[in-house]
């Protein structure tokens, strides 16, 4: 889709070249639209604002949050159903400050706290692309956002923004290089890496002191990507990190799956090599945060091994839920990951040791990879020919939760960080899509308490007045 509209931008500029009047300005206009498209790719707008199989930017995707699903809106330039009537100021206000043209507040599922960093010039380019480079879709998304009280009161975002929204656009650090500043701008702004990778407080604001320190996303876990050598990416070279962002895999380090695989497929792999290098450079400078469980780099745990002596010539138990971890590995994993966990010669079927997925003491991503597989989208991704689909199949239907516990613990113990454990409770929760959140109850409870306190205060004051 984006290629088509780049083409359209080019056609626009080619046609205009034939006209003798103001053609330089028109070429600039076409260049601006193209830049806007690139920036929207960096911001990964399409990931939330397009539903699978749907028209680009037409909305409809439900973003799951602890307070309920939030439906992304139609941001095509449709005048009836999208943002076709938005001025640049209104567009900017929505993207950078979370306020719609009709004055209503957006929920921070839209990462406007990150986009607040985007410069005016870049906003103008994105506006130009959204208005002219995206096809208008004159239909509303099938669902609309309906959150439980009190979150359905959008005005409540006012207080949240007061606490957590910094409206200052990006300010570079003159002491750092151009490349570092470019990386900082991209990571803090359009890249919105912190939206997933920075842990949040009880009110769901990002904890500024723990930038990129890792956070759970309900099921998948966005790991610590600070510069810490053990817990983060400090042991990765800038080159390896940039290559990972471009391909979603790195030999001897790990591979992207779940939401990170989507971010790479839709956004990161389309960025220029220079921008990826800049992002890598910046991330390698983020203050180190260490998890005390990580006594060595998460990419250096484990070694090749097998339990073949226990397996060969031994029949499976009648109750398949009683299969040992070694038997489960043999039946389901060894074909690709090989009998000793060493993966294929070129690493394209990755080893399970020296792999950050098993090297972490948080085993959520291991379980999620087994439940949902590793899915990649788009041409040229993964190995030659496998242009779309599952690099690793999902085992959600194939393996029971008991089997996932046995297998997960076997893999962790033999190939990964032995401190990482898989429990039945964990697998059950992850299979369901995550633990239910206390937040709704908490806030409602607080409101009731606050309301009662106010009532008592009024009564006391009136009492006093009567005296």
């Amino acid at each position: 889709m984006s290629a088509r509209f780049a083409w359209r931008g080019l056609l626009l500029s080619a046609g205009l070249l034939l006209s003798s009047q103001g053609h330089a300005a028109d070429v600039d206009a076409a260049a601006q639209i193209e830049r806007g498209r690139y920036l929207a790719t960096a911001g990964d707008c399409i990931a939330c604002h397009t539903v699978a199989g749907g028209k680009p930017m037409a909305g409809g995707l439900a973003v799951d949050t602890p307070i309920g699903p939030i439906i992304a809106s139609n941001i095509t330039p449709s005048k009836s159903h999208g943002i076709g009537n938005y001025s640049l100021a209104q567009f900017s206000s929505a993207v950078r400050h979370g306020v719609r043209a009709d004055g209503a507040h957006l929920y921070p599922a839209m990462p406007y706290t990150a986009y607040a960093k985007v410069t005016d010039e870049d906003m103008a380019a994105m506006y130009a692309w959204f208005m002219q480079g995206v096809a208008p879709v004159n239909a509303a998304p099938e669902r609309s956002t309906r959150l439980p009280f009190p979150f359905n009161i959008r005005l409540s975002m006012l207080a949240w923004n007061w606490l957590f929204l910094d409206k200052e656009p990006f300010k570079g650090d003159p002491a750092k290089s151009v490349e570092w500043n470019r990386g900082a701008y991209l990571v803090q702004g359009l890249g919105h890496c912190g939206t997933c990778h920075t842990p949040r407080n009880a009110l769901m604001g990002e904890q500024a002191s723990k930038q990129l320190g890792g956070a759970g996303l309900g099921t998948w876990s966005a790991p610590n990507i600070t510069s810490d050598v053990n817990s983060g990416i400090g042991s990765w070279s800038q080159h390896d990190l940039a290559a990972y962002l471009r391909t979603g895999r790195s030999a001897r380090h790990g591979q992207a799956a779940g939401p990170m695989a989507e971010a790479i497929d839709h956004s990161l792999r389309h960025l220029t090599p220079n921008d990826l290098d800049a992002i890598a450079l910046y991330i390698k400078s983020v203050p180190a945060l260490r998890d005390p469980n990580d006594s060595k780099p998460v990419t250096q745990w484990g070694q090749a091994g097998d339990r073949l002596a226990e397996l060969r010539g031994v029949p499976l138990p009648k109750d398949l839920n009683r299969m040992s971890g070694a038997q489960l590995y043999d039946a389901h994993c060894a074909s690709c990951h090989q009998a000793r966990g060493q993966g294929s010669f070129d690493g394209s079927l990755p080893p399970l040791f020296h792999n950050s997925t098993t090297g972490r003491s948080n085993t959520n991503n291991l379980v999620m990879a087994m439940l949902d597989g590793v899915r990649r989208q788009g041409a040229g991704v993964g190995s030659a020919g496998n242009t779309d689909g599952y690099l690793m199949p999902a085992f959600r239907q194939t393996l029971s939760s008991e089997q996932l516990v046995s297998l997960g613990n076997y893999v962790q113990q033999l190939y990964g960080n032995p401190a990482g454990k898989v429990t039945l409770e964990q697998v059950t929760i992850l299979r369901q899509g995550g633990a239910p959140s206390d937040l709704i109850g908490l806030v409602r409870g607080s409101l009731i308490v606050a309301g009662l306190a106010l009532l008592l205060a009024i009564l006391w004051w009136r009492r006093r007045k009567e005296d």
Partner: protein
Amino acid sequence: MAESMNTDFLVIGSGIIGSLAARKLALAGASVLILEAGPRVTRGEIVSRFRNSTRRSDLMSPYPSVPTAPHPIYQPTDSGYLVQAGPYPYPAEYIRQFGGTTWHWAAQAWRNVPNDFRLHSLYGVGVDWPISYADLEPYYQEAEEIMGVSGADNTGSPRKQPFPMEPVIEPYAMRRVRERLAPQYKVVSNTTARNSVGYGGRPACCGNNNCQPICPVDAQYHGGIAALQAEAAGVTIRVNANVYQLEHDAQGRITAALYYDADKKSHRVTAKTFILAANGIESPRLLLLSASSKYPKGLANSSDMVGRHLMDHPSTSLTFDADEDLWLGRGPQSPSSIGTMRDGDFRGQHAAYRLDFTNISRVDGATKDLISRAVFGEEFERQLRFASAREMSLKTVLEVLPDPENRITLSSEKDSMGIPKPQAHYAIGEYTRLGHERAQKDFAAIARLMGGTNLRPSKEGAYANNQHICGTLSMGRDPAASVCNEWGRAHDHANLFFCSTGVLPTCGTCNSTENGVALALRTVDHILAEQGIKPGTAAAAAGAPA
């Protein structure tokens, strides 16, 4: 007798054909029950059994026969389940369990070539099908989209829509064969139900070279997947339900199926419409078992054609050492073939054939051979590497003509459930033998082109079997000469349909599965239209990428 059940549609057999027929009915809103004689099984168990097998080259060793639903076993000793009446052995292998036999196929998913449908009109041998290639073409497409078939266009079967996927990339060994055999022989990539990209939520092939007996990653489609898809579409599959008799009423409508459960308790299931999908041997067996006073020769058998015209694809082969290192065993087991002899005027004189190049690893076979010849020590290592690198093999897939004397009947012996065993009468005719003779010229030429030495042809007069069981429920226009009509409806019973490779009236030169699936999908369309069942709107994705 234990409890009864009732359903609209009863399908007997949960193999790839029965499951996909049931699935299509269920997606249209029908209520469907499948009775499967054998047990449920999962892929992981089969992979484990293969690696622990003491007979890795025996494709049936990961699929043990169970006493409550026995299937033929030949190694290490013949279980005698499929009684051989001769004159020629017919050691058919099939699997009675959830998902049926295609758990262990090589996923060859060919269409017939158009002239296959008109063998008699064009060449004066065999019979014509009651339908044309054009009639079946849209159902071939539908089958290919469900299964995820990848192939090249140059294989003699015209198509209106592209393949769902490009052909699986050619192994190095096959590329060398193709390059060296050109231009005299045109080697093409096989049309297979094997993923060259992620498809249907299943990964692309990663070269396990184990298609038979089991693909460990489901990169190839098979009946186990079809059965799960049927269940996802709302079909109920009852396993360990060995149907031993069909009952009928005075008007000849089939009324009920009787089955034994795992404890040999009998159950009765009534239905409005019956679909028999229990492979080309077990289906005629059931019809013959259901003989009654009104139908003393068995059901659907007023023509005496049930079980007759048994056809399969016999194979002869040539193995030799090429003059360069090829290293078979990398990639899928059956990647390439030569199809130029699948059709031609010669079919008036001798059998057509396809020439298949195998890519199955030579290692275990060469190991056994060297040990039997007492080759040990460093010499063993040297010769094993040589054989693994250089040895190649090709085989014919020969057509046989429908011969009423080739047939499945009931034996006087009984199986472990007390049910009369199936019995095979089989012979390889002159037509086929002449086809093999003609193929010898191709074998010799190909060996020469590959600088072949140490030529080892298969034993003269011996034909290997390919388990493509056809003809025993032949479709045709004449009720006196066939068992069912073009829709698979039994001539004798209005509510009995056959979804099976048994309905194929000639076997052509291609593996029978896709033909069987396409015909079954066409049959279901006919049933839906006739009964006025409308296709549903929900969940109609036919195995499309997840």
